[in-house]
Structures are given as C-alpha cells and as structure tokens.
C-alpha cells in the first residue's frame, strides 16, 4: 500500500514519484529475507497488477532460479495451461491465447508453434526481468487492443551511476524431482554515463516423477537464456539503450501432446532512445525499434513407434518487427500518456509427413500469415481532489491480415473462396476510478469496452490439432471481431497489520470465438474425433472474483491468502473450456533476522462446470498440496550468500490442475536446494 494511503497529507508527493513508474505501487513492509539493496536490480522481480492498489514484492534471489511459469502461477487471477514440465501458457481469469496480450518490454512477440507449445513467457526468465505487469482489463498497462488485458515482462536494464562499478549474482539450484538443475549468473558494469549488464540461465531437467512414484515420460527439458543490456547517457536526461535476449530450448518433452520439441529458439533485440526531461511537463519520451525471430521445431523421433503412426516434422517460425514511441506528461492534476505503435508479424508453420512405403506429404498448417498493426493509445489519469482518481483511456488499432506466399494462398483455396485479406479497425475504451473513502477504505472499479480481431490461427488455421478436445481446427476468414464489455469493482481495507482486498469482475462478450464442429470434413490427424472451425457465437459471459488478504499477527509473522474463481458460460449456457475453478494459496511466513521460514498450501476445488459434448473438456477433481521452505542469509564481507531449501508437495500428492491438458499428474514431492551469492 503506498504511503499515500496511510497518510493523506503526504499523498501528492509519493504518488507523483510513483506515477513516474506508471504503476500503482505498494510494497509490503515485511522484512525481506535476502533483498540486498545495492544489488536490487539484479536480484528482484516484482509484479504489478494494474488497477489494483497493491504490489507484491517477491524479491528473493532464489526466485530467479525458478521458471517464469512458477512466478506467474502464484499471481492471483493467473492460471497456467500445462502441457508438460516446461513452457506453460498463462491465462488471465480464464482468458488465454489471443484474448490476452503478451509482450516483452512492450515488444510484440508471437509464438511460432501451432500447438501453443511456446507462449512467449517461455522465452523470458525471471533473471531477465525487472517486473511483470499485469492488466485484467483491455485498457491496462497493455498497449494493444485486447478483450482481456495482458502481461508485460519488463526487462531488467543496466543501471548507470551505481556505487559499485561491478556487481553481480551467481546461483545454482538442484531439485531432486526430475534431477533438475538451474545455474544463473548476472553481472553489471556501471559507470556514470555507461553501463552494461549481462545475465544468463542454464536449466536442465530429466523426466519428473508425479505423486506416488509415477514417472512422467517425455517431460525433460534443456534450455539456456542470455540477456544483454547496454545503456549510454548522451546527456543526463537522454539515454540510448540496446537490449538483446536470446533463449534456446532443446529436447523438450511435452507428455500431454503427441509430439515433443527438438528446439525452440528466440532472438529478441531492440534499441531505444529515452528522453526524461526535468522541469517540464513532458516527463518521459521513449522510442523503441525491435525485431525478434522465433524458430521452433516439433519432433516425434523420441516417441515409441506405437505413438507415431506417421513420422512427421513440424517446424514453424515467427518474426516480428515493430516500433513504438510513447510519451508521458504530467500537469497539474493530469498524468497523460500517449503512444504510437506499429508492428508486423509473419507466421509460417509447415508439416512434412513420411509414411512408410509411400510418398512424403507436405502441407502448410499456418499458411504464411502476415499481420500488420498500427495503433494509438491515449490514457489520462486525473486526480480530483484528494479522494478521486479517474483514468479514461482509448486504444485504436488498425489490423491488416493477409497471406504472403502463393503456396499459402493456394492452400487456403481448399477452404475459402474470395479474398483472404482482412482489415479491421479495433477500438478499446475504458474508465478506471478509485475513491479513497478514508484512511483505511478505498473503492476501485473500472468499466471498459474491449475488442480484438481474430488471431492468425483463428482466421487461417489449416488443420491444427487440439489435444484437449481431440479435434482438428480450421480457420474462418470471415470471423467478426470479438468484443467485451467488462466491469470490475473492488475495495480495499488497510490498516497496520491487516489488508483485505476483494474484487468482483464480469466480462460480457459479443461474437465470442470458439471452435464448432464442422460436419462433412475429414480429419487430418490420425485418431482425431473430427474437425472444428472457429466461429463467432453471439455472446458469452465470464464472471468471478479474487480475494487477497494479508495479516501480520506479530512482527516477523506474515500470513497471506490469495483466492480466485472464474465462471464462464456461452450463449447456450454451456460452461466455457479452460476456466479455472476456485483456487486458494495460503501462506505463512516467519522471518527472524537472517532466517526465513514459510509454509503454504495450494488448493483447487473440483471443476465440474464443464461441457464435454460441446468443448470436449472433462471434469477435474480438487486437490490440496503443501510446500515448506527455509532460508538463511550469510554475510561474507560485502557479499551475501543466500541458502534456501524447500520441499514442494511434501505429501507426494497425485494432483493436476483443471487447465492441465490430458490431466497429467504434476510433480510429486520435490526437494529443492538453492544457493545464490550477490556481490
């Protein structure tokens, strides 16, 4: 909770400072077991949820050794779709894929895999990140049209003028389950006008073991990730920044799917110019150009013969180039933001099949789709008196989709007649409001209209197999935009030791896009149940709530509870697929001086709000698992060594979450040991 809420007299000044970060900001007053201030930028990842007046500060260097997936799944409202032990796909309140926007440092990226094996969150590591920004509404921190908000992974940048010229971090971790190892390192060289930093991760894991000793075959992974950042100050208030991120995964198993991945590589580069004048109404002006290339190859050569009726190669690529320029102004009681953005993405995915005793077969599964988007975002934050904050916003995107090769056009002549080009004008508008009732109570709410154009897959998919419902999917170039009107209302009660924040939300969708069975089409995938085509259904409804509470009964003791639920229904009253049931994470921490102990439970209720006939989903049973951990900091000269041990799923429970594809059991008992040294 910002100090502003504690004490109204000081409201303006801290808010002013915090708004420069453009995020509502709140830091728990709790002592952090290992947050070492001088190397803050190297050892922390924060997340912020837009429009919600708190920020959790998960700032432990051991967290950097975890995967991005594990960080994400602890955030209220975020649930991961799991296809293996790697590259889980985030959903926000049950919205996923094209309904949410995922960006890395404001850059647009699109996974190259047609089977959603590589959500872009799999190409960024906690060690690369400074902050995860989340928005549940279309007009959140995200700068792009969407119906359900999105996620931005803000990259860590090199800091100039740090007292220590050289600073860094090395760490290693080992987990008994899957004999997983993580090795991380970060190094920064900082002078007054120039700074460069590098960070790297290397992870590998074998097959993991689910509860009760069941080994999950094809769940291994290997990856490395390297982040580089260089900053040069042209003048004290003008900087040039270059960022490069490379992430390469190899031999990754996807036990819930029919194929694994031989490699998944991303190269992500950008150059920025940032102007931050002082004493002007213009507070910052940042312009960035970027390019990224993702190369992904599915592989079935490691599977036993009975699982592979026909050997096939399924490579895919995605490349995006773009730019944005955003400026922020502050005058009197307005905090204004404007942005222009443009990007172009090309997706290519193909499949070559090698039947025995017959000719090889070749097809495009995503027939060379090109999408170009131009957008304008405008946002204002208006402070009305001491109590009211209003934030109107508007986003307009012009989206052009077409097919850029002759083969792609010929392929789609199988499905469509007439022009394949699509042009959409998409707009979002919203209003956020916050009302400080008194020093302890605050109300916040938002009302917005969101829209998105159908994704490349929804428009042009060419027999993409969906393991969840066992159907081949084909696109529909005549899809209308999906739109949502969404509202949320929350309140926050805050006093010295107790913080409670419930929130309710509702999204009312029009032209909701779902797969619908198409009769008379024969399946491409051997064993598939049929063919579905993306269609607009007239409407759909998603509603639910989150409850976040913290309590400090005594100093050094801290209790936290995160609860969320979503319910989704289509126009016929059928439950929508991939909607998380009630989930509760409860945690107790005890942190005497250099030590830290915690115990937590993670529970999910059963999900029987499903529509097996319509969406092919099956019911899930609920579960509760328990984790415990302990850590200690050792000070060695000016360096800090953190030792941390944890046991996850201590009861070795067999469990899965509702969004896990094929409902494969998640890892059983896992003992993890992490060491990290910050210097």
């Amino acid at each position, binding site marked *: 909770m910002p100090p502003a809420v504690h004490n109204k007299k000081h409201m303006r000044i801290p808010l002013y400072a915090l708004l420069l970060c453009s995020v509502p900001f709140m830091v728990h007053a709790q002592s952090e077991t290992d947050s070492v201030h001088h190397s803050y930028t190297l050892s922390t990842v924060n997340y912020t949820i837009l429009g919600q007046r708190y920020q959790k500060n998960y700032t432990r260097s051991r967290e950097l050794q975890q995967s991005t997936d594990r960080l994400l799944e602890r955030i209220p409202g975020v649930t991961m779709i799991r296809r293996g032990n790697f590259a889980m796909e985030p959903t926000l309140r049950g919205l996923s894929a094209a309904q949410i926007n995922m960006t890395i440092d404001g850059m647009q990226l699109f996974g190259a895999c047609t089977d959603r094996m590589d959500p872009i969150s799999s190409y960024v590591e906690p060690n690369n990140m400074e902050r995860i920004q989340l928005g549940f509404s279309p007009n959140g921190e995200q700068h792009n049209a969407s119906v359900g908000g999105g996620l931005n992974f803000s990259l860590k940048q090199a800091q100039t003028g740090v007292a220590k010229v050289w600073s860094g971090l090395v760490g290693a971790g080992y987990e008994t389950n899957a004999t997983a190892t993580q090795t991380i390192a970060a190094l920064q060289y900082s002078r007054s006008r120039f700074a460069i930093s590098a960070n790297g991760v290397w992870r590998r894991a074998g097959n993991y073991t689910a509860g009760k000793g069941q080994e999950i075959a094809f769940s291994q992974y290997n990856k490395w990730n390297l982040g580089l950042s260089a900053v040069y100050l042209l003048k004290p208030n003008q900087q040039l920044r270059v960022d490069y991120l490379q992430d390469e995964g190899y031999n990754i198993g996807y036990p819930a799917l029919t194929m694994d991945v031989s490699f998944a590589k991303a190269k992500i580069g950008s150059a920025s110019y940032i102007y931050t004048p002082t004493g002007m109404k213009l507070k910052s002006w940042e312009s960035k150009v970027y390019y990224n290339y993702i190369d992904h190859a599915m592989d079935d050569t490691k599977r036993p013969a009975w699982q592979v009726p026909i050997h096939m190669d399924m490579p895919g690529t995605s490349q995006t180039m773009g730019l944005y320029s955003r400026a922020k102004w502050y005058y009197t009681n307005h905090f204004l933001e404007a942005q222009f953005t443009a990007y172009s993405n090309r997706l290519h995915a193909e499949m070559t*099949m090698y039947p025995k005793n017959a000719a090889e*077969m070749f*097809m495009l599964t995503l027939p060379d789709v090109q999408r170009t988007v131009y957008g304008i975002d405008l946002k204002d934050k208006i402070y009305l008196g001491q109590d009211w904050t209003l934030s109107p916003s508007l986003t307009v995107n012009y989206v052009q989709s077409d097919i850029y090769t002759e083969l792609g056009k*010929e392929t789609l002549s*199988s499905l469509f007649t007439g022009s394949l080009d699509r042009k959409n004008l998409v707009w979002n508008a919203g209003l956020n409001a916050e009302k400080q009732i008194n020093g302890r109570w605050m109300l916040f709410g938002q009302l917005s209209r969101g829209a998105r154009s159908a994704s490349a897959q929804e428009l042009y998919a060419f027999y993409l197999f969906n393991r969840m419902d066992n159907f081949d999917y084909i696109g529909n170039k005549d899809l209308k935009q999906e739109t949502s009107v969404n509202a949320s209302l929350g309140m926050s009660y805050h006093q010295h030791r107790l913080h409670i924040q419930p929130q309710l939300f509702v999204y009312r969708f029009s032209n909701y896009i779902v797969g619908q069975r198409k009769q*008379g089409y024969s399946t491409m995938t*051997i064993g598939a149940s049929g063919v579905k085509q993306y269609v607009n259904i007239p409407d759909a409804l998603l509603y639910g709530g989150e409850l976040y509470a913290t309590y400090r009964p005594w100093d050094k003791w801290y209790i936290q509870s995160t609860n969320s639920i979503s319910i989704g229904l289509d126009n016929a009253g059928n439950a929508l697929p991939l909607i998380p049931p009630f989930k509760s994470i409860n945690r107790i921490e005890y942190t005497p001086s250099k030590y830290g102990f915690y115990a937590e439970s993670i529970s999910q209720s059963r999900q029987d709000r499903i529509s097996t006939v319509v969406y092919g989903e099956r019911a899930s049973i609920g579960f509760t698992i328990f984790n415990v951990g302990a850590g200690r900091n050792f000070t060695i000269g000016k360096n800090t060594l953190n030792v941390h041990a944890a046991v996850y799923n201590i009861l070795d429970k067999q469990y899965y979450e509702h969004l896990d594809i094929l409902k494969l059991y998640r890892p059983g008992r896992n003992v993890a040991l992490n060491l990290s040294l910050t210097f």
Partner: protein
Amino acid sequence: MRKIFALVCVAIALCTYTSCKSKNNDPKPGIETPAKSQLGTASTTDYIITLYADTPLLFTGYNRLYVKVQDATGAVSSTANVSIHPLMEMSTMSHSTPYEQVSYDAATGLYSGAAVFIMPTADDDAWKMEVTVNGQKVAIPVTVGTFPTKVISISMGSDNTTYIVSLLRPATWKVGMNDVEFTVHKITDMMNFPALDNLTIEMTPEMPSMGHGSPNNISPVSTGKGHYKGKVNYTMTGDWRLHLKVSDASGTVLLQDAFIDILF
C-alpha cells in the same frame, strides 16, 4: 529395335524440350504457343503429316494429340479433311482405343484431338496412329508408356459393361483447389468405345497413407463428349486417391469405386 528407336526419339525430344524451355526465358510477345513434342512424321503424295503431343512420351490414359498438315511447299493447311484412328496391332488381332476425333484449332494452327490409351506399348504389341488427310492415309508409330500412377480405370460395371474412366492430367497440380476433368467411355467392341454423357460421378478424394480426405470438392458433372468437370481439393502434397462412384441417369450405380491415383 523399334523400342530402342522410340527411346532415342524420346531422349531427343526431351533434350529439345528442355532446351526450348531454357531458351523460353526471354519474354516473347504474341500468342502463346505451348511447347509440343513431336511424336512422328510421315508423308503422303500431297502432304507432310506431323503428330504432336503435350509431352514427349504418350502414357496410358488420356493424351491430347495434335496433327500438323503441310502441303509439299511446307505451307500449313487449315482446310483439309483430317481424321485420326489409333490402332494397336497384336500378334493375333488388332484393336483401337477411345479417342476424340481431331478438329482444326485456329489458335495453334493444328488439328487437335485426343486418345485414351487403355494399355501401354508392349513387346509385340505396338500402337500406331492412323492419320487420314483428304483420303490419304499414313500410319505413325507411337510409343505409349505406363503412367507412374493409376490415371485410368478400366472395370466391369454392374451391367456387365466395361467402362473406361480416365483423368485429364493437368500440366501441374497445386495445393488447394484444382480443376479436375475426366472422360468416361464404354467398350462396345474392339473398335468402338463410345463416350458416355449424363452419368453421375461422386468424387471423394483420400490420402491412402493417412486415411483422410479433403473438404469442398465439387464432383465432376457431364459437359458433353464424355467429359466431366469438377474441382478437387488437395490439402497437402503427397499421394491422393480420387474415388469415383459412377451412376447412370436412373440412379443405378454402375461403378462402385473407379479410383484414380495422383502423386504430386
């Protein structure tokens, strides 16, 4: 001996074909004259008669044929009365095959027709094309090879008649929607193979190595002279089989599955 000669002919024809192709890189104005392969030539007292096809080698199934008629001075004739008649001479008998009589095509300056070869040239069984120009007849030997996939279906129908269903091979197939055309003939006797119109053909493509089909196909419909035109959808490259169920006007199924195989 004749076989060797034929092979040499084919080789020469292939060479000229490819070299023509490479020269054709220069854009040339004027009417499009698709490269044709000469199959053979013969002279009568008044005419030089040359037989062409689209490819250097004829294949079992449907082949377009072209006849060029020149007088003794070499001038191309467009007004002659030209007819063709394919004939296979076997050791004990001879027979013909379904064919389409030639007619003059002003665009190419050739008399064009077609023949549906029901069998390839074999050791002692040779095909020849009899060409008659204003009553003067020549016989040009031609070699018919077996097409690598089954582009012709010869089978006994439910009415104990033998039907011949043949694919008109396009220059190239492409992924996606393609025009597709078939001919249907029946065997009356060794010399008569009338073309059949007004049949109903139900076409179902399939990839035999995967067992799946493709959507949005348009079954061929009768366009006269025994021809049927439709659209076939190839969702990918590879082996395809076009299942053809042929019924007569009364709805009686004549052929349950006269299939044609495609590879591209």
